[in-house]
């Protein structure tokens, strides 16, 4: 059983942390994973930086730009991750845009993921339908979970399709927005969370986009199986350094 599925069986109120590989420094990838491991986060999402991250807000955009100018590449990422499973047992997901994966070669990419111990993928611009039609078979071959997104606009019909295709969790985008830290949720968001929860999907739900502090994390947990934090963490390590990761997690969890 995939590490992602396991963690949801074992735990509630999961915290998944996203960071951009190669940021702030090119060789921070492993350091950050070690820090997150020590901090006992539940899932790690490694962002493969892309020149044109069109679902991302300014924080992740800038971290991606920096990572690329630091020299981050797909090959280098796999190289950095080659001892991943010696370092940590936490489920690890790669989040990346489709074009770099396509250029790398999908099969080769999946195969490398499997080799280094990646558990799943989030590819925001690979729509569920195209995945199903063209690529599902490849990802399954390498036992990689695919996690798809849903938004406040996603129809129930489509949520069912996504629930069918997703393995691990469904990435529940908290609002109409690109990634980025926000302070609180409004009542429409809470209604949306509740509406989805009631659907009793086969996959657990993680809420992402706009989680930045204890309050938003807790609200997310009340309405789902946990939350994903990206921009807030990236800002934090940019300001305080990678080694202060544990402090950040404490701010959220304690």
């Amino acid at each position, binding site marked *: 059983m995939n590490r992602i599925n396991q963690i949801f069986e074992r735990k509630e109120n999961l915290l998944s942390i996203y960071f951009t590989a190669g940021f702030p420094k090119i060789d921070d990838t492993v350091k950050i994973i070690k820090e997150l491991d020590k901090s006992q986060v539940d899932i790690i999402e490694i962002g493969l930086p*892309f*020149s*044109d*991250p*069109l*679902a*991302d*807000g300014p924080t992740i*955009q800038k971290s991606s*730009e920096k990572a*690329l100018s630091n020299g981050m*590449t*797909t*090959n280098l990422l796999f190289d950095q991750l080659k001892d991943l499973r010696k370092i940590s047992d936490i489920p690890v997901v790669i989040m990346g845009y*489709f*074009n*770099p*994966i*396509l*250029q*790398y070669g999908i099969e080769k990419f999946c195969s490398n993921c499997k080799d280094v111990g990646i558990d799943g993928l989030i590819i*925001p*611009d*690979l*729509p*569920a339908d*195209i995945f199903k039609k063209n690529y599902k078979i490849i990802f399954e071959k390498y036992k990689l979970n695919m996690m*798809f*997104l*849903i*938004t406040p*606009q*996603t*129809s129930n019909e*489509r949520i069912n399709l*996504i629930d069918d295709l997703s393995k691990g969790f469904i990435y529940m*985008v908290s609002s*109409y*927005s*690109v990634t980025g830290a926000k302070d609180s949720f409004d009542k429409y968001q809470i209604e949306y969370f509740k509406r989805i929860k009631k659907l009793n999907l086969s996959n657990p739900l993680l809420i992402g986009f706009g989680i930045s502090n204890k309050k938003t994390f807790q609200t997310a947990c009340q309405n789902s199986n946990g939350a994903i934090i990206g921009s807030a963490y990236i800002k934090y390590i940019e300001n305080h350094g990678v080694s202060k990761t544990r402090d950040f997690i404490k701010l959220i969890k304690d």
Partner: protein
Amino acid sequence: MKNFNVNKDGFYGDFGGAFIPEMLFPNINELQKNYIRISESKEFKKEFNQLLHDYVGRPTPLYYAKRLSEKFKTKIYLKREDLCHTGAHKINNTIGQILLAKKLGKKRIIAETGAGQHGVATATVCALMGVECVIYMGEVDISRQAPNVARMKMLGAKVRPATSGSKTLKDATNEAIRDWISNPVDTHYIIGSVVGPHPYPDMVARFQSVIGYETKKQLLKFENTENPTHVIACVGGGSNAAGLFYPFLNNKNVNIVCVEAAGKGVHSGESAATSILGTEGIIHGSKTLLMQTKDGQITEPYSISAGLDYPGIGPMHANLFRSKRGEFISIDDSDAMKWGLILSQMEGIIPAIETSHAFAVLDKMKFNKNDIIVFNCSGRGDKDLDTYVNYFKL
């Protein structure tokens, strides 16, 4: 016979489709389901054609360029999109899309722009319809196309600078997509070229196809045939080219010539010649040819003309290239600038620098006495006067 138009899945051969984040699915899906139904309805067509006629000033002339024809010993016609209201072909599409957006009940319009022509055309139709309008434009383009920025502001649009990447068209497009993700319910995104996820390439090409259909009708009067031997257009995203080529796509007797911007030279590292430098990939939701690193990072393009300064081409054009249906020629900055001056001084038409690129093929291709060549004179050069003046030290 091969079909060079879009298929029912939104592909042109290998290219096209809709590679979009889930956040945009409802919007794109709504468009995919409705664009043909609405745009082919009698009511829509009437309104569209009336605005093109009464407001845009269509049909634009097909003009026989006498002095140029004499000089190059062939028959050269200019399809005068530069005479469209706002000064370029771009408005054909924005008229179509604003009408569509209204039918879909949208209350807010966003758009990206490079040269600013599409931004002006969008701001214009928004003023016409009394709709809120936000235009994204790369910082570099904001400074090199100042007149168009001023026009957008006069028209009441908000112009938001894109400050990432090369700060040009690609980055403005990213920003517009981000805005749309953040405002999916009441906002329509008017893409300015035959790029982006399906149905945009086909939708924009249909709205622009009036260029080609008018050309056929007009040519009949001049030459007793509806079919030129060559249709030639510059390709940024490819909308003016698609509009001219549209009725000729599947007529192999008509040679299709796409002119790309070579910037400082195709292999100088500062170029936008996508067909030569590009490889298959995904940009702005569409599978097409684009300039990228072997890692799939999109390359920052360069051209002196803001409207051609884009690292991709539309999927229709990618397919024209791969299938060899179209001939692709790249023209560097200096040849384009030279031809801006030639057209000005030989025909009294100051072209947009984008447009100048197309004419520069007259130095690169050989034509026969009986060839009938139609250039898409896609836009006027008012927005580029500073660039011309500085370049030629006028």
